[in-house]
C-alpha cells in the first residue's frame, strides 16, 4: 500500500459546501498566496516554479518554468489559461473550475505577475456553463475584493482577467488552435515553428498558455516554496497530480495523488480509490493517460503513476485520465469509438488526419459488425503508418498538430495485443462479445 499522506494541494476544497465562493476561499486562507507573491520579485516566483519543476498538467508535460523562460521579450504579452478540457475521460479541470474558481483566479494572477502579462484570458470549454457561471461570479467577487484590476491589494500591480467561452471543438484544447479561437476564428492549429506561443502567440504577441491544473498549484507553491513541492514525488514528476479515473472501476472519480508514489494497481484496487474492477471482473487492459496514449495491460499494474515510469513502458501520463477496461470489453469497439471521436473532431487541415480518421472508422465499423476481411488488419496498420510513420511511440507525425497521431495507438494496441480478437470478429462474422453489434443508427459525422 503506497497511497501517501501527501497534502491535497489543489483539491482541498472540492466537495466542500459552497467551495466556489470567496467566503469559503478566504476562510481557508485564500489569496494569501497572491499577497505573498506580490511581496516577491517576479524572478523569485519564477525560481520557485523552476525548483518545483511543475510539469504542465494539460497533457504534454512540459516544464512550466522552462516555458515561462522562453517568452520573447516584447509588449504586449498575454497569459491564456487553457480550460478547454475535452480529452475523452478527462474531467479534472472541469471539477477544478467548477469547484474552486478562486484558486484558479489566484493561480492565474500569480502567473501573470511572474511573467509580466498585460492581460489574462481564461479560455473555458463552452459545454461547462456552470463552471463559466461560477468562474464569472468568482471573478466579480475577486474584483470587488481588490484581488484583480487596478493596484491589486494596494500594490503597483494591475491586471484584468477575462473569462472567454469556447463553443464546442476538441481541437481548441491544442494551444495554437485555442489562440485562433480566442481571436474569433475557426480553431485551426498553427504550424510550429514558427508559431510557438511564447514567441508568436495571441495576436502575434508572446503568450504563455498554461493549463488550469498547472496554475492551480501556484498559490500553494508560493506559500510553501518550490522545495516543499519538489519534496513530493520522484524524478521529473514532482508534487501531486489530479487523476481522473473512469471506466470499469467501482469508484470512478477524481483523486489527487502524490506523483510517482502510487501504482496503477493501487489506483484501481485500493478501497479508498478505485475500489476494484466492477463486478470483480478481470482487468483486460487500461489506457493510462487519455485516449491518445498507448494501452497497457495487467502486466503493467505495478508501474507507478509518473511521467518517466509510464514512458519507460512505452506510453504516457498525458492528461492524467486512466481508463480500466474489464474482460467483457470488446477492443475493436473501443478502438472504433476512439477513432470515431478523432474523425468527428479532426479540423480538416491535413490530409492524413482528415481522410485517415474516416477510413479507420469505417474499417473498424465493418469489423465490429462482422463484415471485416483479414486484409483489413494490414490496411488499418497502413493507414496508421500514413498518419504516423512507423506507428511508434512517441509518434512521428505528418500533420500540423498531434490530433492525427493520437489515433494509431488505439488501433495498434488492438492489432498487436488483441489480434486474435480482431480475427475472431472476421472469421465468426460477428463480435464475440456482447452486445455483438453497433447501434442501428449512427449520427452522421
Amino acid at each position: 500500500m503506497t497511497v501517501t499522506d501527501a497534502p491535497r494541494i489543489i483539491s482541498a476544497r472540492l466537495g466542500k459546501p459552497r467551495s466556489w465562493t470567496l467566503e469559503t476561499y478566504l476562510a481557508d486562507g485564500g489569496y494569501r498566496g497572491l499577497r505573498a507573491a506580490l511581496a516577491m520579485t517576479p524572478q523569485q516566483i519564477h525560481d520557485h516554479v523552476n525548483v518545483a519543476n511543475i510539469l504542465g498538467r494539460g497533457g504534454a508535460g512540459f516544464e512550466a518554468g522552462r516555458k515561462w523562460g522562453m517568452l520573447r521579450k516584447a509588449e504586449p504579452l498575454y497569459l491564456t489559461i487553457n480550460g478547454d478540457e475535452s480529452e475523452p475521460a478527462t474531467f479534472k479541470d472541469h471539477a477544478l473550475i467548477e469547484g474552486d474558481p478562486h484558486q484558479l483566479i489566484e493561480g492565474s494572477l500569480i502567473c501573470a505577475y511572474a511573467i509580466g502579462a498585460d492581460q489574462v484570458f481564461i479560455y473555458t470549454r463552452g459545454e461547462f456553463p456552470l463552471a463559466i457561471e461560477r468562474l464569472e461570479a468568482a471573478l466579480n467577487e475577486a474584483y470587488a475584493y481588490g484581488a484583480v484590476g487596478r493596484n491589486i491589494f494596494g500594490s503597483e500591480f494591475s491586471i484584468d482577467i477575462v473569462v472567454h467561452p469556447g463553443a464546442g471543438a476538441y481541437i481548441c484544447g491544442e494551444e495554437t488552435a485555442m489562440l485562433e479561437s480566442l481571436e474569433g476564428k475557426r480553431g485551426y492549429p498553427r504550424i510550429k515553428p514558427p508559431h510557438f506561443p511564447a514567441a508568436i502567440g495571441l495576436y502575434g504577441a508572446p503568450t504563455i498558455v498554461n493549463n488550469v491544473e498547472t496554475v492551480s498549484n501556484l498559490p500553494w507553491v508560493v506559500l510553501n516554496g518550490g522545495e516543499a513541492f519538489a519534496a513530493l514525488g520522484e524524478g521529473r514528476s514532482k508534487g501531486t497530480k489530479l487523476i481522473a479515473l473512469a471506466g470499469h472501476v467501482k469508484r470512478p472519480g477524481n483523486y489527487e495523488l502524490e506523483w510517482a508514489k502510487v501504482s496503477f494497481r493501487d489506483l484501481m484496487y485500493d478501497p479508498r480509490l478505485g475500489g476494484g474492477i466492477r463486478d470483480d471482473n478481470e482487468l483486460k487492459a487500461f489506457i493510462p493517460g487519455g485516449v491518445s496514449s498507448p494501452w497497457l495491460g495487467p502486466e503493467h499494474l505495478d508501474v507507478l503513476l509518473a511521467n518517466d515510469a509510464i514512458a519507460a513502458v512505452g506510453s504516457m501520463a498525458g492528461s492524467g485520465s486512466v481508463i480500466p477496461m474489464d474482460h467483457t470489453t470488446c477492443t475493436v469497439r473501443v478502438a472504433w469509438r476512439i477513432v470515431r471521436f478523432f474523425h468527428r473532431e479532426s479540423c480538416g487541415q491535413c490530409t492524413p488526419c482528415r481522410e485517415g480518421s474516416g477510413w479507420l472508422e469505417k474499417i473498424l465499423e465493418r469489423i465490429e459488425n462482422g463484415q471485416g476481411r483479414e486484409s483489413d488488419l494490414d490496411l488499418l496498420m497502413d493507414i496508421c503508418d500514413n498518419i504516423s510513420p512507423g506507428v511508434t511511440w512517441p509518434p512521428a507525425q505528418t500533420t500540423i498538430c498531434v490530433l492525427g497521431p493520437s489515433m494509431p495507438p488505439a488501433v495498434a494496441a488492438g492489432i498487436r495485443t488483441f489480434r486474435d480478437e480482431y480475427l475472431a470478429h472476421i472469421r465468426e462474422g460477428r463480435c464475440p462479445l456482447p452486445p455483438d453489434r453497433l447501434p442501428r443508427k449512427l449520427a452522421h459525422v
Partner: protein
Amino acid sequence: MARLTPDNQQRARELIALYPHSRSALIPILHLLQGQDGYLSEDGMGDVAELLGLTAAEVRGTATFYDMFHLEPVGRYVVAVCTNIACMLQGAYRLLEHAEERLGVAPGGTTGDGLFTLEDAECLALCGNAPCLTVNWRFFGDVDLGRFDTLVEDLRAGRLDDEVPPHGTLSRVQRATGLQAGGEGAAGAASEGVPAALPTHLDLDTRRTTAAVASMDAGHLEGGT
C-alpha cells in the same frame, strides 16, 4: 426573431470592450445571439458581422466550426447523450437507443412537438458519473433508463425550468466590470462598470445540476489524502 435586441446590442458592445481586438468577441457574441433565439439565424449573424466589421462569410465560417452553434432552429430542450469511451463502457449506447425510442427521433432529429432535439455527444467531462447527458448543456449524471424517462417527464411538465434554462443560454452570471487595469479594450478606453442586465451573482448553491462536482463529493476524494 433575428436581429440582436437593443439590450443584447449593448451587451455585445461591452464584450467587445474586453478584448484588444474586436473579433475576439465574436464567439461570446454568437453565444449571446443563440441565447436570444435558440439558434443562429442568418439575420442575426448579419447583425453580428456588421457590429464587428466582418463579412457574413467570416461569421458563418467561424460559427460552423463549433458544435455548440446551431444554424437551424432546434427543440426547446437539446438532449445530448454522451457516447464517448467512459460512457460507452457504462452502457451509453443502450441509453442512446432508449432515448431514440422514447423520443421517437434519431440523433440530430427534433420531435414533432418541437420539445426535444436528440444529440449523440462527445465526451462531456463528467466521466465519474457515466453514463451522462446534458439538457441545454446542464449536466445529469448516472443516467439509467428509468432516470431518463423521469427526466423527460419532468422536462415536459416544466418542472426543471429553474435549472435548465432555454437552449442557447450560456451564462446567467454577468461580468460586473469592464477592464480596469488601464489596458485598452477594442472600444478604445477602459470601460467603467457595465449595467447589469443579468445578475452578477446567482445563488448557485440551489442548483441541482452540479453533478460534475458531485463526483468530487465525500467518498470520492477522501482516498487522495
